């Protein structure tokens, strides 16, 4: 047997609503040698997961493997009966899903769940299984490997759960492990730890891996070979460095290009502002905003703060980017600005006018000027309405347009967001993710706003579609003279559309700077961590980063008490005794940035284009 995995002419069909069948995977052939990691790359709907599941002899409800030969570790998967499949899955091949958070049972301890497959397949007695679990926890670089198993799923972070899920997949010592987008839901900073843990375990144990993802930069780090899929068929395959450096098909070239978004050409242009003789005019100003929940103290401040003392302003006609990890309060910031989550303290001002905290207390005119485009286009358009009705409602509400006039205006909005007029009579469930996001945008534009709050508008989209949306947004912003707040956890997207950047951590703004200066000059230690954590499409990048970080690793310290710096537990340059107690002062830098850190400006980490080559 030369190949660990060999698939020949695989066909999978799905059932349509009317009973007919549609091909989902067409004539796919691929193979992987023992110990190799093979990446399945493609946009959503390209059949990546379907193929990965077929390797385990599984087809989703409504789908059927209709042809082809699948051989894994010498077994013919397509010829197995149910009993054989049961012992095959888990023993020979196992699966790590995208969202570990929802894959664990919240009512059982992690240990019970992790060793379950070993007991179910009779591979190990309980005691040995427990010993092996601890060994795997250690290999996965989980904190407190001896005791972490006694905890419950909700007590761990997403990245930790993802590694636990991998431990569970490895406990039966399978020969093949299928990873289905295991880091897509994670932040870049966490992603690095998880990727490194996965890679080490695979290499040490000689396991063959199938890695499903849409992120080419991740592919460059983990996979030996890559198969690019499109519309259920193989588009291109080869050694990873080869595919990434010299893509042969137009589609792969497009995928690679989508990872190299052009950096926004203009930055804040000081010459223009100087020429007009006035300081740039702020549109939205947030001062000392506090949002939280829980018991309220004597000053009216809540015990648990999601946002704590936020000072930000958006310049007219410019885009302010907000970046930070999941849960740092980005969405809350947008919701507070839109009046959907009233702040406990602080003021929101719009062109000098103070806005009420609650949207219900704002005037229609104030509501019209600030529009929010929310994170998940699936939830943000009412599925019961047609696209036309959605747009016409806004036009009628704010501009009192009705009938033919409203219809004409709605069609014009569809033109602006580059959607065909046929979309007018359709309902959101009949649209693709990218189309929904465009409608979402058109609805915001229908109000003729001055400020648009964009919350993770590309998070759920494929890189190619996301790049198109970003281009659209950039163009509209320029032609309509909009001001924007652009919330994201994706540095590429951030640099493609923003003029200025605010870095959010634990509800605090730790740094503000010009987007153009993000990759060079002195920065907050957290900004450096973020920037250097964005995977690059260069094989070997992960090794370099891991080597750098392990050299600089700092012993763990307890988190900040009281007013301390929110980054203190992870900061390698922290000043003991100061950083965990005293709120860092905000210092202005030479190129117009503002950094909240105790380090003297000369000691701040400096980024050079050389050591962070997103620009490449």
């Amino acid at each position, binding site marked *: 047997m030369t190949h660990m995995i060999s698939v020949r002419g695989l066909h999978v069909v799905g059932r349509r609503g009317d009973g007919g069948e549609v091909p989902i995977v067409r004539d796919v052939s691929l193979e992987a040698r023992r110990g190799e990691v093979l990446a399945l790359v493609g946009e959503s709907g390209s059949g990546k997961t379907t193929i990965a599941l077929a390797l385990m002899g599984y087809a989703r409800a409504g789908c059927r493997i209709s042809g082809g030969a699948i051989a894994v570790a010498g077994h013919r998967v397509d010829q197995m009966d149910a009993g054989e499949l049961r012992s095959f899955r888990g023993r020979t091949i196992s699966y790590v899903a995208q969202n570990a958070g929802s894959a664990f049972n919240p009512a059982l301890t992690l240990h019970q769940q992790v060793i379950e497959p070993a007991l179910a397949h009779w591979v190990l007695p309980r005691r040995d299984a427990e010993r092996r679990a601890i060994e795997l926890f250690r290999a996965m670089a989980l904190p407190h490997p001896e005791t972490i198993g006694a905890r419950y799923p909700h007590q761990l972070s997403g990245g930790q759960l993802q590694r636990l899920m991998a431990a569970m997949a490895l406990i039966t010592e399978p020969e093949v492990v299928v990873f289905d987008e295991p880091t897509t839901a994670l932040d870049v900073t966490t992603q690095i730890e998880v990727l490194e843990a996965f890679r080490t375990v695979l290499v040490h144990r000689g396991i063959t891996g199938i890695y499903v993802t849409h992120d080419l930069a991740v592919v460059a780090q983990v996979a030996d070979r890559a198969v690019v899929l499109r519309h259920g068929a193989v588009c291109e395959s080869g050694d990873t460095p080869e595919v990434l450096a010299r893509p042969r098909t137009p589609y792969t070239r497009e995928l690679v290009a989508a990872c190299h978004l052009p950096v926004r050409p203009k930055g804040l242009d000081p010459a223009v502002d100087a020429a007009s003789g006035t300081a740039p005019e702020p549109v939205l100003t947030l001062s000392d905003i506090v949002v939280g929940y829980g018991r309220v103290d004597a000053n009216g401040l809540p015990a648990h703060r999601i946002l704590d003392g936020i000072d930000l302003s958006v310049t007219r006609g410019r885009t302010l980017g907000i970046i930070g990890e999941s849960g740092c309060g980005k969405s809350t910031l947008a919701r507070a600005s839109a009046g959907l989550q009233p702040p406990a303290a602080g003021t929101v001002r719009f062109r000098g006018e103070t806005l009420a905290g609650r949207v219900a207390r704002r005037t229609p005119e104030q509501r019209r000027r600030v529009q929010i485009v*929310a994170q998940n286009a699936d939830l943000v358009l009412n599925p019961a309405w047609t696209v036309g009705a959605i747009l016409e409602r806004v036009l009628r509400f704010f501009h009192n347009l009705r009938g033919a006039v409203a219809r004409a205006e709605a069609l014009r909005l569809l033109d602006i967001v580059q959607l065909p007029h046929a979309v007018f009579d359709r309902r959101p469930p009949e649209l693709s993710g990218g189309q929904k996001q465009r409608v979402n945008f058109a609805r915001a534009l229908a109000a003729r706003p001055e400020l648009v709050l964009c919350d993770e508008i590309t998070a759920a989209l494929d890189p190619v579609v996301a790049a198109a949306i970003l281009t659209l947004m950039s163009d509209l912003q320029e032609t309509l003279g909009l001001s924007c707040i652009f919330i994201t956890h994706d540095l590429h997207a951030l640099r493609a559309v923003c003029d200025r950047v605010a870095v959010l951590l634990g509800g605090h703004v730790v740094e503000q700077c010009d987007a153009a200066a993000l990759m060079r000059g002195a920065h907050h230690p957290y900004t450096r961590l973020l920037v250097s954590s964005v995977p690059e499409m260069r094989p070997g990048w992960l090794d370099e980063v891991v080597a750098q970080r392990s050299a600089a690793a700092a012993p763990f310290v307890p988190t900040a008490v009281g007013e301390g710096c929110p980054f203190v537990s992870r900061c390698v340059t922290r000043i003991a005794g100061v950083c965990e107690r005293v709120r860092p002062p905000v210092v202005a830098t030479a190129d117009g940035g503002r950094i909240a850190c105790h380090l003297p400006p000369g000691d701040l980490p400096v980024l050079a284009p050389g050591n962070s080559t997103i620009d490449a």
Partner: protein
Amino acid sequence: MGMSLAGAARRGAAFAARLAPGPRRALALLAFWFVIAIVGPLLAPHAPGEIVDRDVFAGFSARHWLGTDYLGRDLGSRLLWAVRYTVLICTLSTLLSCGFGIMLGIAATAMSVWVERVLGRLMDGLLSIPSLLFALLVIAAAGESVPALILTMGVIYMPGSYRTSRALALRIAQADYVMAALARGEGRIFVILREILPNMTGPLLSDIGLRFVYAVLLLSNLSFLGLGVQPPLVDLGSLVRENVLGMVYGAPAVVVPTIVLALLTVGLNFALDRQRP
């Protein structure tokens, strides 16, 4: 008039086309039973109380298709009337229970926290009384009349409907499109009627269908115990009760109403259940 009727029919058809297959099938089945309930008695060959034959518990024959009952009355005619009473009483009580249940359920979502708490306690209290016991108590106190039956069953099934619709409305109220409407400054009524309610219809229709089935079962139980629909009126449950002696002869008079009852409830249940893929 003709125009608006045609328009309504077209809109109705468009609405049905958008429904999930489960509620759609159930709706079609209900429509069928309605037609029988309304048209059936008009086609009945005999008056329900008319004694037409000396032969009691007669079998199927050309003269009396479904045979005769314990007094020698035409069973086919009585059955058509029984379907009318069962379907109409249960429809009215379901409209009552679901109408109020849904209204209160949505209101609880939109109103202050304590309104919701009081309503919740009230409904939980109602829900904790066994339905048959509750019905027996009310009927013992208020007497056996059709309006009393409708009202009692309406009250019994309201809490369930309240809970379902509140849970649905709560979930939809979290959706970002509701947030977008609020951010725009839409009024509460608009948000409830236009943003929340249209997205509840599918699941709500299933829920209404199920409550109708429960109502049919409860009414038949009551009538079988002699506490439901009283002679000279007749429903499916009382039809079974009065002919129960025919059981020993395997008379159609007791078998056929039982089958019809089963067709009504099991059929609807099946239609609704199929919505799971």
